[in-house]
């Protein structure tokens, strides 16, 4: 049932608004709202009960194992939330003077410093509000760099075919043409294709390393040299930073710019789709171009650097200074991990992935890159099952839900047919992984003996499989009172 269907004229959560109507100045009629404000009229208990019940229809890390490849669904420490929501932080106005912001700014400055240490970059800006905005900032800086040198012929960004969709979309938004290059059969970039693609038109390359196929790009130094020699820059998509934290740094690999998904590696909550935070780090030559504002330290005092200080900046990407509350959560998380904890993230997420990969191979699944180590994630392909039993990756994903496990990422990367990209993260225990393997083994058996069952899954959730075509065709994106029907 929708909250609107609980609405009754005149019902109110009385305590939540001023108790009497204020005498606001009368506005000329042309400014006034004539139509009713179409919010639901409900009691406080209605609201609490409705949304508490709704929440219970979700899977979440706090309730379920969530092996979503590329998403790093690790445990979100509760302290990160309560400390970021402390009244002094929650009530700080973004335009509060520096004199009344030193506590907050100290956290942000130290976060910048820690992210530099972790990535090997020379300056960090925290302002991008999501991974995709971080990517935008990164590619915009590449553009600004070439422009600042009068190097205007560089119109292309090279992107591997396995890249996240955000990579080509971002390159387009920044006014570049996208040149795709294929992945070789071992999961690395096809070097011949890359050599062919590189030229004076190359502005840069966007890489994820470990790549989206779950392996470490072994020839990264060679690639960096190739691009740099051609006058291009290297962009690092930090989606998979979790796998290498404290082990190897993008700056040391030769990258010029990187975005970090703090909601992945540094465990700020995914919140059902956001907010994220996509801090960017740059090498020496891109320092003048970082998005604003950033925080500097002047003696004992923290201060903002803005357009006056960095006139070559690509500018501002958010109304104030990014998703500050998310950044505070990441800061707390990093301090809890500390120097000792950082490399453990890479170690145990990699251990979990390799263990899970070995176990799933054992029970009969096909690996996409059986000759490679897993990084913090790996891919299985159901190509064989699709052919032999008519069962798809989607069927397996949906059936997993019935076993109380969130599905892995399906059909990404696009180049592996019927694939499941599986990332267990370091915060899950061996027992959980073993239980997942058991469920997967059962499903594999079902796929042989009762494929129809898989195609009909899930069975135990609030809904069965949805008609997505209908959703797009008969677009219904807002409730209209007259419908009156229950949802």
């Amino acid at each position: 049932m929708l909250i609107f269907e609980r609405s009754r004229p005149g019902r109110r959560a009385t305590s939540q608004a001023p108790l009497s109507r204020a005498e606001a100045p009368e506005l000329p009629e042309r400014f006034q709202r004539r139509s009713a404000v179409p919010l639901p009229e409900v009691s406080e208990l209605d609201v609490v009960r409705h949304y508490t019940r709704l929440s219970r229809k979700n899977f979440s890390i706090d309730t379920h194992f969530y092996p979503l490849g590329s998403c790093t669904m690790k445990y979100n420490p509760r302290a990160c939330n309560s400390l970021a929501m402390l009244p002094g932080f929650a009530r700080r106005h973004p335009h509060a003077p520096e004199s009344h912001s030193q506590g907050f700014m100290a956290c942000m400055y130290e976060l910048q410093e820690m992210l530099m240490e972790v990535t090997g970059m020379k300056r960090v800006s925290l302002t991008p509000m999501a991974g995709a905005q971080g990517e935008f900032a990164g590619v915009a800086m590449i553009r600004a760099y070439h422009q600042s040198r009068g190097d205007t012929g560089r119109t292309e960004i090279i992107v591997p075919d396995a890249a996240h969709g955000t990579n080509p979309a971002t390159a387009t938004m920044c006014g570049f043409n996208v040149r795709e290059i294929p992945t070789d059969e071992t999961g690395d970039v096809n070097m011949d294709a890359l050599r062919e693609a590189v030229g004076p038109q190359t502005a840069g390359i966007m890489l994820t390393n470990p790549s989206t196929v779950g392996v470490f790009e072994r020839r990264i130094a060679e690639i960096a040299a190739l691009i740099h020699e051609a006058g291009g820059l290297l962009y690092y998509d930090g989606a998979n930073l979790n796998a290498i934290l404290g082990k190897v740094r993008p700056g040391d690999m030769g990258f010029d710019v990187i975005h970090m998904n703090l909601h992945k590696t540094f465990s700020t909550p995914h919140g059902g789709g956001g907010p994220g935070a996509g801090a960017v780090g740059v090498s020496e030559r891109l320092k003048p171009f970082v998005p604003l504002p950033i925080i500097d330290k002047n003696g004992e005092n923290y201060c903002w650097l803005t357009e006056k200080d960095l006139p070559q900046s690509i500018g501002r990407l958010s109304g104030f200074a990014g998703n500050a509350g998310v950044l505070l959560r990441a800061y707390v998380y990093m301090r809890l991990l500390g120097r000792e904890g950082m490399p453990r993230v890479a170690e145990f997420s990699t251990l979990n992935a390799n263990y899970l990969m070995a176990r799933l191979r054992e029970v009969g699944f096909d690996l996409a890159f059986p000759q490679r180590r897993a990084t913090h994630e790996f891919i299985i392909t159901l190509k064989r099952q699709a052919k032999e039993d008519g069962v798809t990756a989607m069927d397996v994903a949906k059936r997993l839900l019935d076993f109380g496990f969130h599905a892995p990422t399906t059909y990404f990367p696009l180049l592996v047919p019927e694939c499941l990209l599986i990332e267990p993260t370091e915060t899950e225990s061996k027992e959980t992984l073993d239980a997942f393997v058991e469920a997967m083994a059962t499903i594999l058996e079902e796929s042989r003996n009762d494929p129809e069952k898989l195609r009909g899954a899930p069975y135990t959730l609030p809904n069965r499989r949805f008609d997505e075509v209908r959703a797009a065709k008969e677009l219904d994106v807002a409730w209209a009172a007259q419908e009156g029907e229950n949802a």
Partner: protein
Amino acid sequence: MAFVPHTASDVSQMLATIGAGSIDALFDEIPANLRVGGLPGIPPALSEMQISRLMERRAGQDAIELNFIGAGAYEHHIPAAVWQIATRGEFYSAYTPYQAEASQGTLQLIYEYQTMISGLTGLPISNASLYDGASALAEAVLMAVRANRRSKSRRILLPRSVNPRYRSVTRAIVASQGIELIELDFDAATGRMDPAALKAYEGQDITAVVVPQPNFFGVLEEADALTDWAHAQGAQVIAVVNPVSLALLKPPGEWGEAGADMVVGDGQPLGAPLSSGGPYFGFMCCRKEHARQMPGRIVGRTIDADGKPGFVLTLQAREQHIRRSKATSNICTNQGLVVTAATIHMALLGPEGLERVAASSMANTQQLAERLTAAGFELAFSGERFHEVAIRLGQDARGVLARMADHGVLGGYALGEDYAGMDDVVLVCATETKTSEDLDTYVNALQASV
């Protein structure tokens, strides 16, 4: 090891299964010369008790008594239920609802959010939110270029009465798209868009006109007339609004003869704490015929295999994970958790509650303006206002504000930061959170600081 559950026996069993001699061996594909030995620049780990004490000290250090700053972020009462429910693990730690069957909580909530925002703005299609109001304006400009197929000029009229930060962000984001952003001046007396400034563009190919309501100075624009003017030029109208004001102000969907074509704004006043500027969320609504030009996620209602209604992410073919370099935007995340809070917040307020919040905020600012003029200060603009007012101090505002802060009052935003010739003007906001005594405190602090 914080958050790592592995025991020594787990590790050895797992390595044996893998067939590796050590955890380190799992990194053997990384070239040795690239490996780092450690991260000495990271401080040692803290316990939760230690970091709590540090953060409490720092948060306490920044606490202030009375805040009268608005300028794009507004202090409102947030019901206790809002974040207590939004931070339930099932909302807080859930992923994007791609697996619809396991995400009906988030999906239904977003559908309800879309309905609420669409109802407030008067435009039928809402997405599931964008990053913030500023970036939403940038996306709206890009969308207008896609949606207004008759216009070839890629010229956007962007009044200077629009929040300066929104203008900066828009500039940065559309920089590489061959779009011309033309800034229009405001009338120095009224504080609203200068009708004379428009004359110059009469009859030209304009892709879109941005109309803020209220504008950055809190002043109400002649939205009806501007909308009709824009449509007469074949331009689309992008409204930029404060969602709380829509309880009292005419919704953009009803502006002029045909209504605005797109509306964006920042959802912060609907339940997001000020929180140093974020996370907030940007909302965006459009006409039905432009739904497929919309950036960001959209939730739709459909039926399942049993014919039972439910909710899914829809029109995904617009998005980057499907369409890649041809997507409507590179946007991937929405601000899900803040949208969760905002939806609960709006449900708790209801129509009358939101009206009372808006009316009280407006009344308080009016009261403050009256007391300040009674105390001898001058209002900068004569136009009708919502809940912000620009005050002339007769001296540099920054210095006055610094002295007011020493009295425990954040006195407002210095307009000189963005507008040449306005160094002595402060933009002040008094929402429903302020009592009559608070207003007196303001006046006293100001008088003591000039």
